[in-house]
């Protein structure tokens, strides 16, 4: 699954898409009174004017919508811009709010995977998955035939059996034996890594570059290792030699 790195005679690659995570302040609104918002925003900004200067900001109107309070997105954006903040997104808006945001060239973010909502989350998975920011923690063994998918990092305290499959868009940490398949960076993040205490995997993969059990050298088998990607090649390294 490696890409062709040879350049054609006429074109050299001038761009590349990469995935990165940024930390952006989110303005959570609980009232649609623009005057009140303006006043309180001013107070907050005075506390740390440098921090807020030209800062990107995402506004979250989920709570407003939960209370069925509508807000004029264009007017809100104007208020925010007045303070030198730069709105780069809206979250939790209804269809109409999303549309007016897009008209203003403000991207719309979906709400999932965020803990900003106060509503208690329903825990469906019986393997006791707990969402802590963007990491998924699992304390029960992952048995043969089970599949786990994590949007962020995946941390597993128990063993992963042969015939099980674990996937994460971020890193995978296994503080136990890995006998099944582990796929990190499944959305194409080449910086994702896999860490495990005892490598006996059937298959390991980072961003689509994979190795099967047969390709894993005896020198790294049954050892605590980290697996990372460099130039489309998977490297398995004894974690103690780092």
């Amino acid at each position, binding site marked *: 699954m490696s890409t062709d790195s040879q350049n054609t005679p006429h074109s050299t690659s001038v761009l590349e898409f990469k995935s990165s995570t940024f930390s952006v302040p989110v303005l959570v609104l609980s009232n649609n009174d623009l005057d009140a918002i303006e006043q309180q925003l001013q107070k907050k900004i005075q506390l740390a004017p440098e921090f807020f200067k030209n800062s990107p900001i995402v506004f979250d109107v989920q709570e407003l919508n939960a209370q069925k309070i509508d807000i004029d997105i264009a007017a809100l954006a104007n208020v925010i811009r007045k303070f030198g903040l730069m709105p780069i997104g809206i979250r939790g808006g209804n269809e109409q709010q999303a549309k007016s945001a897009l008209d203003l060239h403000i991207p719309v973010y979906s709400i999932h995977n965020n803990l900003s909502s106060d509503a208690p989350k329903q*825990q469906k998975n*019986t393997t006791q998955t707990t969402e802590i920011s963007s990491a998924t923690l699992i304390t029960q063994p992952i*048995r043969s035939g089970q599949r786990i998918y994590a949007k962020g990092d995946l941390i597993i305290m128990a063993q992963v059996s042969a015939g099980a499959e674990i996937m994460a868009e971020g890193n995978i940490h296994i503080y136990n034996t890995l006998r099944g398949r582990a796929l990190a960076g499944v959305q194409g993040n080449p910086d994702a890594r896999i860490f495990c205490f005892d490598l006996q995997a059937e298959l390991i993969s980072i961003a689509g570059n994979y190795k099967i059990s047969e390709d894993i050298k005896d020198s790294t088998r049954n050892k605590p290792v980290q697996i990372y990607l460099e130039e489309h090649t998977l490297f398995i390294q004894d974690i103690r030699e780092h």
Partner: protein
Amino acid sequence: MARIIVVTSGKGGVGKTTTSAAIAMGLAKKGHKTAVIDFDVGLRNLDLIMGCERRVVYDFVNVINGEASLNQALIRDKHCDQLYILPASQTRDKDALTQEGVGKVLEDLAKDFQYIVCDSPAGIEKGAHLAMYFADDAFVVTNPEVSSVRDSDRMLGLLSSKSRRAEQNEEPIKEYLLLSRYAPDRVKLGDMLSVDDVQDILSLHLLGVIPESKSVLTASNSGVPVILDEKSDAGQAYADIVARYLGEERPHRFIDEKKGLFGKLFGGK
């Protein structure tokens, strides 16, 4: 409140029915009113192992369909009056079982019994699913060979995700490992996985090791649960398992090679 135990494995021929019969008999002999249900609809075996095949009138499917009452279908055991058997239907298939029907039968049994042992069919399809769905405890019967261990692992995954307790976010099913047909001499030769190997793969609480034993076949063919053969090693192993399940502490036996008479006399190695 009754405790529902499922005896399961994934793989066939590992000793589920033998174990169900022995465990149910063991619990009943200890004075607990116990029912044992054959979930292997279409491949009815439990009644043979329990020696009550000639007394089957109504079966599990009849009760689910409302064609017979539970009391009409339950067969009292010859050896122990605390033990009742609910046989499977031989003329139907697993589709005759419904989740509501099975749930209702178990609910009715729970009013009257302390332990309900569900003898699961092999596989992971409907019959096996319904056998484990309502369970509180699971006895996972495994032979010391790789395919059996793998199938048990798969079944453990289902127990923790597809059972009622899992679906309703209750305390998970308690899982116990029963390693059957164990032959220490073959383990020593490297032909067979050891207890440690199996535990390493499954990481499960070991309730007991049942040695490979001629007495199991003899008991099956004569329709007497092997636990009643108190002289046999397999019978003793099952007695230990029941005692441990009920909270007694007993050291594990049958894991190491048996010493011959001379070995015993002279202290062996």
